[in-house]
């Protein structure tokens, strides 16, 4: 770990004997200025949303000035209003159901598929591979899938949101690639000892693949959690969080969304900002954990080796 960090550091830091020239100094200053600039560019939109969500109802200044309002003048009206509304909790529960159901189905389908594709000696593996790749390369668009979901009667059921996307071919290929990398001797010796393929998968492969299963599971999790389009297409009620948020954001006055006083007396823009922030909280809380695995996964998918 320490070694890795060192490699990450700028080379000249390790070699203090080399004298820095004026050009090096300018370079360092420009690099640091750019980094600070990026930091500010990332933070300003986030900060303006957060401060807006705490805006008191009787606030008269502009929103620009509001960004510098001291915290003791902030008001939590918008949050109490949102939390007092059942819609938010229901939507959160629906989102959670989609997340859990989706990740479960996705893994149950993706792991065996990836494993089958990784068995090098399998007769007909190329055919199965073609079956997997063709729909990935040839995407017929949203209408034919919509008709399918309608025809099999999934309309207005939560699985409609995650079943059509339960195997992402890209994830499947990444996972297959990982399985291929597991030494063949391990699998072969297990087979010679009389393990069935199912046992090889569960006793040998999966215990060695916790990281990749975690990564792919998180890939799926984030995409299901953030999905609003499929929920909008297929669900009329039982709507998840992104749909509720979208409805709140698109409503020009709150009365379009629910009865006028359902959200108390916080300013409309504060309620919008507060629902944005509250919708983002689960992701922000899970983020440190997700980041660790996602970074790994991106590199698995893009850099060969």
């Amino acid at each position, binding site marked *: 770990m320490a070694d890795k960090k060192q490699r990450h550091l700028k080379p000249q830091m390790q070699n203090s004997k080399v004298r820095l020239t004026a050009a090096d100094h300018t370079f360092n200053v420009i*690099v640091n200025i750019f980094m600070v600039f990026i930091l500010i560019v990332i933070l300003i939109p986030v900060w303006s949303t957060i401060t807006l969500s705490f805006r008191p109802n009787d606030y008269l200044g502009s929103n620009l000035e509001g960004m510098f309002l001291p915290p003791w003048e902030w008001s939590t009206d918008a949050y109490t209003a949102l939390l007092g509304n059942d819609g938010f909790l229901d939507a959160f529960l629906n989102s959670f159901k989609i997340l859990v159901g989706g990740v479960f189905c996705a893994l149950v389908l993706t792991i065996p598929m990836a494993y*089958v594709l990784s068995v090098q000696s399998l007769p007909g593996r190329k055919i199965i591979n073609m079956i997997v*790749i063709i729909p990935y390369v*040839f995407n017929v668009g949203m209408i034919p899938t919509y008709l399918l979901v309608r025809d099999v009667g999934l309309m207005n059921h939560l699985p409609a949101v995650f079943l059509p996307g339960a*195997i992402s071919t890209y994830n499947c290929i990444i996972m297959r690639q990982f399985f291929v990398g597991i030494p063949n001797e391990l699998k072969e010796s297990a087979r010679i000892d009389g393990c069935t393929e*199912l046992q090889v998968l569960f006793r040998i492969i999966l215990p060695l693949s916790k990281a990749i299963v975690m990564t792919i599971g998180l890939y799926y999790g984030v995409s299901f959690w953030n999905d609003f389009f499929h929920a909008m297409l297929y669900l009329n009620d039982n709507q998840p969080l992104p749909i509720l948020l979208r409805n709140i*954001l698109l409503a020009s006055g709150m009365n379009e969304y629910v009865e006028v006083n359902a959200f108390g007396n916080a300013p409309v823009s504060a309620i919008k900002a507060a629902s944005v922030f509250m919708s983002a909280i689960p992701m922000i809380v899970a983020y440190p954990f997700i*980041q660790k695995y996602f970074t790994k996964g*991106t590199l698995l998918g893009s850099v060969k080796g």
Partner: protein
Amino acid sequence: MDIGKSGSKAPSTALSKSRLRREIARHRSVYLLALIPLIYYIIFKYVPIWNAQIAFKDFMARRGVLGSEWIGLENFRTFINSFYFWSLIRNTVMYSVGKILISLPLSIILAICVYECTRPALRKVVQTLAYLPHFLSWVIMYGILLALLAPGDGVVNDLIKLFGGQPLDFLSNVKTFPWVVLFSDAWKEMGWSAIIFIAALMGIDVSLFEAAMVEGANSWQRVRYITIPAILPVIVTVLILKLGTILDAGFNQIFMLYSPQVYSVGDIIDTWVYRQGLLEFEFGLATAVGLFKGVFGMVLVLLANWLSRKLTESSLF
């Protein structure tokens, strides 16, 4: 990544029939394992391909996919002769290319700066925060953009007013909308796209830098002659992969941000297919357009895959 390359070639061709039969019998349980995913594939990936035949039909919901009447290429003709054909293609390509032109240089510069940064704390904070927006949905992004760009009380318009300018309605002005799309995408994905470059940078042999320093190269020269050549292959790979998805201009983003006032500059193929199919119920026409995009997308992906295999010896399939 190449599925076809390794392994199976040698056994399957040279095998005698009895040996093949034995191989199949030995792998019985693997086929069993493949069964459920394959059924899934047939239902959820191949039935839609089958359904796509309505692109050549006058689809009526009452009659279903099979019962509707064949009309040949009528739907395609309607699309190609329509006034929106070129504007849809233009918008789609414009957004894809624009996103590459803005995000790619930014993410490369960010990666180099993260790598060269002399302050570990600053580097860590920037890295962590820059990845975060990638995980937010476009609904949340829209909310954030509202707080920033709202016509009446957005922060940016407050700034414009402060300097005596006219406030703009950024999201419903045809002049500003494309820029909002391009820069909000850059804001969201810049850090995430930088990861792959940072990884490539970390793979550079440090002794190269040390040798360059001994030879008297300054930081600029090291970036110019070591860092950039080292990540050039990665840049090429990323560009090639983007070529394959050039018809995907970001449906979720545009769908969240656009409104009827900006359809002329905001509408891309996917958003049009959605409106035509699922709001106007022109299923046949919308499917034809989706299929049109699918066929071109396939050509582009195969081309990208082939190019990538030629140039960088790695491909997705």
